[in-house]
């Protein structure tokens, strides 16, 4: 377990993008991006998910609590993370989307694939 986390200290911080990580339980990691999850921040998000999965964590919750805005690239990156996590035998859920994020999920019909949870607790339950 400690070895799994040690790798994260070597991650380069991308400009403009802050993604906090929190180990919610032994098996689940919460990613909390901040600000806009859009075309400019999507690559850093994808990379962070990739690193987590390579390090052995495939059960992920993306906490949208501090995400102000999402576009199709941002959601595409979350979908990419979902696919990677499932390929690794895990899953990815999203929690606490704001009105803007809910709107884009609805417009793209991605709320079927990325079922939004209103709270972190609900998203973590059942993992």
């Amino acid at each position, binding site marked *: 377990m400690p070895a799994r986390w040690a790798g994260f200290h070597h991650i380069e911080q991308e400009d403009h993008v802050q993604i906090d990580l929190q180990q919610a339980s032994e098996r689940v990691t919460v990613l909390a991006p901040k600000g806009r999850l859009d075309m400019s921040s999507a690559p850093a998000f994808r990379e962070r998910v990739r690193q987590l999965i390579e390090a052995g964590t495939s059960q992920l919750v993306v906490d949208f609590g501090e995400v102000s805005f999402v*576009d199709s690239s941002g959601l595409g990156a979350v979908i990419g993370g*979902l696919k990677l996590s499932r390929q690794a035998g895990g899953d990815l859920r999203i929690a606490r989307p704001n009105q*803007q994020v809910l709107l884009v999920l609805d417009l793209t019909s991605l709320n079927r694939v990325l079922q939004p949870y209103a709270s972190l607790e609900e998203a973590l339950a059942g993992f």
Partner: protein
Amino acid sequence: MRASRKLSRASDREPRPAEEHALERRARADQLDAVHDTLAQFWEGIGALPDERWRMLFEVAVSEIAANIVEHARPAVMNVRLSAAADRMVAEFTDTGDDWEAPPEQAEILDELAERGRGMTLARTACDEVAYERVGAVNHWRLVKRL
């Protein structure tokens, strides 16, 4: 069982100075920041605001076009002009970047888990008109959302 995953595609990655890459990323992020700032200023200058959902839809379309321009046309300079009329709001973009080659129109996304390709559909869903034309060396985008 975990299958081996080739997560890095060598063909997509050219060796380039880390600094140059970071500057490009920052330039793209700055351009998108500027679009969002412009939208915020635009709303501040309007007396009777449309409701929040309407504004969000307009912003979604504007952002998708801006991201499309930044990602594909990669211009050094992009101009955006937002205007309000009695019955509509309009966003006009011009840039001197690369020509935009439209992907084939898709009535619907067949792959539910597609990671790319939703942007234009999203813009067209959120707004009433999305038009593109190239005049000489200049790309022109025009978005119209009726009130």
